[in-house]
């Protein structure tokens, strides 16, 4: 798939080329926004705004400054951070107890499944304790096909700074989880 050709066509008003860009990037954007801690409704809003911005400003994309994925993720990051900084924009993660999970479930969950879900909720809650910028950094580091240089471009910092911040964010996340275990 030649996304560079598609973004050129999008800049010229070709909505089918734009559709191909959305199809090629939508899952990565949603996964990134989900890791950022946005719920599905807010993630859909932010993803929609992101892609519409891509449509409107396709002519401003410069392949010399980074890949199309990097450019779209940078827009998504800025949109998500803006949304999270607005009043009521912050998604509050509340750890879910085993009892709640048992009540909420239709069928009794096997112990292993229950433990896995509890662990997932603990991780979500721990992620919510990190700053939005650190969550963004962690999230982008798990996007397929992004190297450290691309992550640094998205985060607007040097490669060295991205490396250090990533290490610290993971360390902080581990500390939160360990404190939660005690």
């Amino acid at each position, binding site marked *: 798939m030649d996304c560079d050709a598609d973004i050129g066509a999008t800049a010229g008003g070709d909505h089918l080329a734009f559709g191909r860009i959305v199809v090629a990037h939508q899952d990565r954007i949603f996964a990134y*926004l989900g890791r950022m801690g946005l719920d599905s409704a807010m993630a859909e809003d932010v993803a929609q705004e992101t892609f519409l911005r891509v449509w409107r400003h396709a002519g401003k994309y410069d392949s010399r400054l980074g890949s199309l994925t990097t450019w779209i993720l940078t827009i998504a990051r800025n949109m998500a951070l803006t949304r999270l900084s607005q009043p009521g924009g912050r998604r509050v993660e509340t750890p879910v107890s085993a009892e709640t999970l048992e009540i909420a479930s239709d069928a009794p969950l096997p112990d292993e499944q229950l433990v896995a879900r509890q662990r997932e909720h603990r991780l979500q809650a721990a992620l919510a304790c990190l700053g939005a910028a650190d969550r963004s950094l962690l999230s982008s580091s798990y996007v397929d096909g992004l190297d450290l240089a691309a992550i640094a471009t998205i985060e607007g910092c040097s490669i060295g700074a991205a490396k250090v911040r990533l290490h610290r964010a993971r360390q902080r996340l581990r500390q939160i989880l360990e404190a939660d275990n005690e």
Partner: protein
Amino acid sequence: MNDDIDTWLAAKPLAAPPGFAARLTALAQATPQPRQPSRGFGAWQWASLGAGACFGASRLCEFVLVAFVAAGAH
């Protein structure tokens, strides 16, 4: 613990809802793209404008000088 973090973050917690791309494509059709602003003057354009102005000024000076000399001769 690291494995847990990696497993959860590597998994995709959210996926695009069905029909998202089609909906956005339709939305894009209804959303006008802003007209690209015309590019500013390039260096060569400024240079040719300057050269044209100099040429025009020199012709004007020449005209004034000729008119002055002609007036003096009379």
